[in-house]
């Protein structure tokens, strides 16, 4: 029981610390590619959040401002549980330590983006006081759509098409391990459950155990699935080139346009949590190293979680935003590769 309580407190805390670093790392990598210095490492992820908490509170032009403001906090909690579900100490709770449970929580996050957009009414579009129709406008009386509403439509499309690659990729380790339980997936990759608790200081024994792992990532279906997962990761995060949901050129920041002061800080926290969870799930199911109470292993896990954001920063720096003309074929293409990985893993299992 004591492990369960400590894990519930410590592992989300470790996730939070890593989450504080990720946005800074992401910005730093992009800045270096763009021949700039970039912000200090902790500024975008930590100091910015702190700064927003102390900013003047601004009432959003939303029909349900309280609910609108609470959505990022709900998102942080959802991701809090997603981290815990991948933690070995929580696997004793029946059915929570499964890939399906994490997929369910990620679906909630996707829905949250739609909800945010639906409850937002920024002044930058329809509400802007400007007499459009006095000067002989041809189109009069059309229904007018806020940027956020346009963004919600895009979020809906991304839920249907954009999330396919990630979920398909997540089920490749499931097929190989013949189980949806994280415990079985990491055991398949040689994770030694005796390492879970109590842990200790850095010891070569741990390094040996880590090097003894046989990650799914280094198998043929694993590589294919990892590649597809990475594309799904970008889509899920609404990051370049799949940031059509918050394309600056038209819908500006999309669903989060009206978040200011502490709510903007909350939104940043939610994003950091999603960044960590998606990386953490990848490390757990493709490398076989879950976030555990064992301190050295937890540090290695968190360090590995920084790799994917670095990779996505590089991709983002060299990509324009895709419109749906490009998103559909890319998503379908990678979903097809994901299915190929599933077929290959099925053949391997049979």
């Amino acid at each position, binding site marked *: 029981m004591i492990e369960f309580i400590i894990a519930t407190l410590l592992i989300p805390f470790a996730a939070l610390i890593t989450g504080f670093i990720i946005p800074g790392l992401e910005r730093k990598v992009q800045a270096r590619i*763009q021949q700039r210095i970039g912000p200090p490492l902790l500024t975008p992820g930590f100091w910015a959040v702190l700064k927003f908490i102390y900013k003047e509170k601004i009432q959003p032009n939303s029909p349900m401002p309280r609910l609108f403001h609470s959505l990022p906090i709900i998102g942080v909690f959802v991701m809090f549980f997603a981290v815990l579900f991948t933690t070995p100490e929580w696997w004793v709770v029946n059915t929570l330590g499964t890939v399906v449970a994490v997929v369910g929580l990620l679906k909630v996050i996707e829905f949250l983006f739609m909800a945010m957009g639906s409850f937002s009414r920024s002044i930058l579009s329809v509400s802007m006081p400007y007499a459009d129709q006095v*000067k002989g406008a041809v*189109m009069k009386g059309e229904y007018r759509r806020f940027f956020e509403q346009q963004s919600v439509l895009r979020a809906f499309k991304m839920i249907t098409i954009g999330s396919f690659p990630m979920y398909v990729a997540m089920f490749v380790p499931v097929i190989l391990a013949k189980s949806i339980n994280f415990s079985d997936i990491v055991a398949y990759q040689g994770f030694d459950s005796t390492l879970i608790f109590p842990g200790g200081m850095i010891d070569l024994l741990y390094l040996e155990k880590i090097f003894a792992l046989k990650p799914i990532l280094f198998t043929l279906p694993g590589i294919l699935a990892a590649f597809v997962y990475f594309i799904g990761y970008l889509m899920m995060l609404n990051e*370049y080139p799949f940031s059509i949901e918050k394309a600056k050129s038209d819908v*500006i920041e999309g669903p989060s346009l009206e978040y200011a002061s502490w709510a903007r800080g909350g939104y940043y926290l939610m994003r950091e949590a999603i960044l960590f969870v998606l990386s953490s799930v990848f490390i757990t199911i493709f490398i076989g190293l879950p976030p555990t109470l064992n301190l050295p292993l937890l540090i290695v896990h968190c360090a590995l979680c920084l790799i994917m954001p670095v990779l996505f920063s590089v991709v983002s720096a060299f990509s324009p935003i895709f*419109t749906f003309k490009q998103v559909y074929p890319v998503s379908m293409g990678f979903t097809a590769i994901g299915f190929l990985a599933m077929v290959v893993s099925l053949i391997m299992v049979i």
Partner: protein
Amino acid sequence: MGENERKEKAEVEVPVGLLHPAMLEPYRARFFVDDELIVDCELTLDPYHKGIERIMEGMPVEKGLIITERICGICSHIHLWNGTRAVERGLRIKVPERADYIRVIMAELERLHSHLIFLAHAMEVLGHETMCMRAFTLREDVMDLLYIISGNRVHYAVPIIGGIRPRCDIDDFRMSELHNRLSKLDVKIGDYANRVINDSLIMSRVKGTGVLTKEEAIKYATPGPTGRASGINIDLRKKMKEYKTFDFNVIVLDDGDNKDRVVARALECIESVKIIKQALESLPSGPISDRSFELKEMRFSTSYIEAPRGEIYDSLALDETGRIRNYQNRTPTLTAMASMEIACIGDQLTDGMLTMASCDPCLACTNRAIVVENGKERVFTEEEVKSLIRRGL
């Protein structure tokens, strides 16, 4: 698709602006969309009016012409040159050849500056931050060159009536600096253009979007590189006496889409470097200004010039004391934006914003006051305008 059909197809309106991060200028775009596809668009360009023409009325001509630089912060030299040129034409002042060369060098550097800002802005609207930053980095080099010649990074104030200011003459030190830096810039711009043209991700966004056919471009009098990207082979520089001695190509492309508008400007940058190099190599010696003219009453005089965004027109008259009367200025953005209103139809909404940016809009220099009486727009006659000016309104 006819107007009625478009009206029926429009599902919803998405109004964009006046304030929007993707708009460098204050205009209002009403996109009528069916799902994500634009079926119609209406632009409103006139919320912002500087009243420069009115401000200049009655000012001493040398003092007034400096204000033309404030029409645009990016192409300030070309406005001052064209205003000065109109006066020089009206008063039949002969400009020394060396001054003409230096004016051309400044104009071409300014074209580089303007096109690089365009490329940066287009890449920003595309969402490609890296190429945006790189274009801005290249622009810094161009601004350094402008600084070397004029002493200023913007608002250079190079031309004066009869020539150029003494501080803007190109001496040996400036000449060697310009030569050195231009040779590097040439390579850098070429690399950048190649990188943009060969980037399949960028091309997937710009190819086939925002198509403006040659017929539409002619109908809407699309100016400058925007028109040339739609196949209109007009470049006023080929007709200007100042450019007669230089060998350069007019970049004319046929597809008329966003890709061609981006590529046309990238290739024009290379041509501009070519012109500057020729001008530096054959820079004639001699005086840089002829100030022996006498200001007197001048009848209505006009001048047309090829600015980075297209053709600009300046006209003015002088009274017997050399004060400006009836200064008029027409800039290319008005017709360029009108063309984009048509070009964006059929695009995705996100591409529509790119199409708007692809004509390199600069409204600060374009707007006219619109008079609305009882909810209806009214156009003032020439007599009414003169009457208003006489009454000081």
